[in-house]
């Protein structure tokens, strides 16, 4: 495109700095919100008012903000479940299933200690809470090990396997908490029994302690990718699996390991949401909704380009937007699924903007008459 003596030109980027990547991400989000305005306009809602309500509920409102924070912890766990395999070039879209299994494992511990049948206040939180965390992590890791193994050993698409496991575990939760299930609420409301108050997760300023856990993982993962041998091996495998094999990195070990780590973190999200968020303390009837929400982890992981620290603000933003989206849905009597639609639009905008990770637009003075401008195809 030409304007007078300057022209708009696409240039292949040789490097992409962190700030450039962040700028592209912000532009992608702004672009997505502009496109998403159409949905509000079609529903006869002023988009400015809608966005104002979304953001003020999510980040200012005294009822909304704690929900955002809890969602943020959940989402950051799910993002890490995506990021670790992503750095190895693998796609974990099974965070929903690993999250369900984490929740089930948490309640299995409670069940094993008899927390269902009698409200036992002798149960020691010092013992049981770490056990629940451990169980949630192990549960998620075991489920994660399946796609890791089938990918590493038989080269089966991890995308297909993780998706199958999402559906499988969805019904497994239903089996456990609905009619006749082991964890069924005695009142039979299609949810699990409630955990004894003595085992509620410790709160710091009304925020569950899991926030420290997830932020510790942020540092740990950052350190792992930047400084450790295993982090290096994961990145090498992600860049070029064949070359990594020649360098002596096992083709089975890396996929298995990244999926076990990712699964364990998604499992912890299951502990967090159903055993640590104030006011929940049971596997809720709408657990499937949180499973769907886990897919926001894919977008967070992609936008933060697999960087565990960059994922923190991104997860906070999306936690707030999905929370606020759900709120305006009721507030402005919109149809069900505003937060789902937002997920979709954000994702596709991000895909489009990936282009700018590789190309930049520059203004140049034209020197020659003929210039071939365009995207190479």
């Amino acid at each position: 495109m030409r304007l007078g003596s300057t022209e708009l030109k696409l240039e292949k980027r040789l490097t992409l700095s962190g700030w450039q990547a962040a700028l592209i991400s912000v532009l992608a989000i702004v672009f997505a919100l502009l496109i998403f305005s159409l949905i509000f306009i079609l529903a006869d809602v002023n988009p400015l008012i809608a966005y104002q309500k979304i953001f003020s509920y999510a980040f200012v409102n005294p009822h909304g903000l704690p929900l955002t924070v809890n969602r943020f912890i959940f989402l950051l766990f799910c993002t890490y479940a995506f990021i670790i395999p992503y750095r190895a070039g693998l796609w974990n879209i099974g965070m929903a299933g690993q999250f369900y299994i984490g929740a089930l494992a948490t309640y299995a511990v409670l069940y094993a200690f008899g927390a269902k049948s009698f409200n036992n206040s002798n149960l020691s939180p010092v013992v049981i809470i770490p056990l629940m965390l451990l169980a949630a992590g192990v549960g998620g890791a075991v489920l994660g090990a399946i796609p890791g193994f089938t990918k590493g050993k038989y080269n089966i698409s991890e995308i297909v396997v993780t998706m199958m496991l999402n559906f499988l575990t969805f019904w497994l939760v239903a089996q456990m908490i609905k009619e006749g299930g082991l964890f069924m609420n005695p009142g039979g409301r299609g949810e699990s029994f409630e955990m004894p108050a003595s085992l509620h997760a410790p709160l710091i300023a009304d925020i569950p302690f899991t926030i420290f856990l997830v932020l510790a993982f942020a540092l740990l993962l950052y350190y792992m990718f930047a400084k450790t041998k295993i982090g290096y091996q994961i990145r090498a495998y992600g860049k070029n699996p064949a070359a990594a094999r020649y360098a002596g990195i096992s083709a089975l070990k890396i996929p298995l390991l990244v999926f076990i780590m990712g699964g364990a973190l998604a499992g912890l999200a299951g502990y967090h949401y159903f055993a640590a968020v104030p006011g929940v303390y049971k596997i809720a009837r709408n657990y499937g909704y949180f499973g769907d929400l886990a897919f926001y982890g894919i977008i967070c992981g992609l936008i933060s380009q697999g960087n565990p620290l960059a994922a923190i603000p991104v997860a906070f933003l999306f936690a707030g937007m999905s929370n606020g989206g759900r709120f305006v849905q009721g507030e402005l009597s919109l149809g069900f699924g505003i937060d789902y639609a937002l997920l979709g639009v954000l994702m596709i905008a991000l895909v489009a903007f990936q282009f700018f990770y590789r190309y930049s637009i520059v203004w140049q003075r034209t020197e020659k008459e003929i210039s071939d401008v365009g995207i190479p195809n």
Partner: protein
Amino acid sequence: MSEFLIRSLDASTIFTIAALGELIGQRSGILNVGIEGVMLFGATLGFMAAQTTGSYLVGFLVGIAIGALLGLLHGFFSITLGGDQVVSGMGIWILGFGLTTYIGNPYTGPLGMDRIPSVLGVSPFFFVGLLLVLLTWFVLSKTSLGLRIRSVGENPSVAEVSGINVSRTRYLCVVVSGMFMGLAGAIYSLDYNPVWNYNFLMGWGFISLALVFFSMWNPFILLGGSLLFGILWQLSLNPQLVLPGLLSRYLWRTVPFVITIAVLLLISTKWFRSRWGAAKPEALGQPYVKQ
């Protein structure tokens, strides 16, 4: 029992058509992991159009058209912009999952139209599926267009040098591929199970993706795989036919997914794969940049 077989054939038709679409795209070197999203769009918009106009024909045409558009979008991301095809496919899946949940919600419930009459006892789309398998096989292996498509999928730079327009060939394939997927989605929501509910496809798009890898890019093996999956799915939806009272109804819902993973495992063993020659398009998933 014959009712059961008919339902199995109907189910397998959907797998066949969706997977054929993916096969065509992959043969030209374009991987689309977003089949589920395209099918959700085809199914939802087809359902809405059919219910609004009262015409099945309009419903199917809308389903095919939205499939073509999404194919074009995937082509734009992966051919013109040269982006990562898995990222683009994932984008299309999540777009489909998110957006159809919202726009389809007011239409939740049954379609409320007379069922599409069966032909010789089965859904007419079963024959459409067979025809498309034959047609795809014929075009891909017996025509010069098919040769062009395959060479673009194997080695795009050599194809380009020999005078084939790589981009145009790939665009043609992704658009046709999207049309097949959109049609498959519309068959699900208008014929196989005409009730709309959000995210109702239960991973059928992902299974179709697995079927293409399974088929070694051969339409006939793909048809066989679809029949197998159609029967297995139908069996697990009707547990009383096999083992009455063995598992609870929720556990039975998990069976199709267990079976899918088991079958994938079986067909991915060396033992199984060494029996069939693989014809994986060499340039699959790699963006092509003209030098």
